[in-house]
């Protein structure tokens, strides 16, 4: 609804960027992603002990959702687009989790 209200308020296609982020905002997101990537790479050189796997997987998911939400603009767009994408994503995760479980990947 905020998107519709902003379209009404600005009324022109030129203001598409208004219901998103500024250039500086995108640069900040990129810097955050770079920092998270550096942290991921650090797990290769530094022993994180039992936190190794959780840290890597959490960082992977956080980076994934940051790119999808901000760079792909999904956070600011119509929810139908989110439904389209996340349906495919969760279907894929579900199907392939079942696939991996069939091959005893999680219990081996």
């Amino acid at each position, binding site marked *: 609804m905020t998107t519709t209200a902003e379209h009404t308020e600005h009324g022109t296609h030129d203001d598409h960027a208004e219901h998103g982020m500024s*250039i500086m905002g*995108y640069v900040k997101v990129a810097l955050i992603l770079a920092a998270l990537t550096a942290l991921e790479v650090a797990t290769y050189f530094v022993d994180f002990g039992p936190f190794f796997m959780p840290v890597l997987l959490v960082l992977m998911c956080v980076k994934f959702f940051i790119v999808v939400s901000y760079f792909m603009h999904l956070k600011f767009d119509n929810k139908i687009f989110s439904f389209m994408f996340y349906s495919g994503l969760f279907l894929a995760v579900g199907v392939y989790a079942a696939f991996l479980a069939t091959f005893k990947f999680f219990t081996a």
Partner: protein
Amino acid sequence: MADAAVHHADHGHHTSTGLSNNKLGMWLFLGSECLLFGGLISTYMIYRGRVGEGPRPGNVFDIPFTSVSSFVLLMSSLTMVLAVAAAQKRDDRGTTLWLTVTGLLGATFVGGQVYEFTAMYTEGLGYTTSLFGSAFYTLTGFHGVHVTVGVIMLLSLVAIIKRSKVPGDKAEVVELVGLYWHFVDVVWIIIFTLVYLIPT
């Protein structure tokens, strides 16, 4: 939603949802791509320990090199978003500049992949050396092809914009190419973690 429908009607694209069919189609396509790469990644996860007589992942992966490649691809997502922002401001010069930079960064990434594959092959990991090798090259090869197609799309779009032959809404066309490009980056985020950083 009504305003969006009117907005699209102004551009001659009246839709029943009030949303761009092109954008809807792209998101649907990206949803299906999740299934494609989900299958490839899952297969790799099953086979990554099946090295047979061939080299193990730890013997062939060059994490520092791949980290730099990952950073290059990540930065290309930033430049892509800057291209989209420029397109939305009707700044053709800025759009073509950032699209070109994105394409060059993508080409650099692909070049890095080619170098990596060559190095791995000389170290004894061929496509048919082991199940690990087959699964690895298939997964990263498919991703590399996607990046290559993306680079071609980007550079083609630069040429089309320069010739002022973009069909329909230029900002939307750039945005759609951007969505594909960001997805390719997102898939690499997953591949880099699961394939390279998590040891077998």
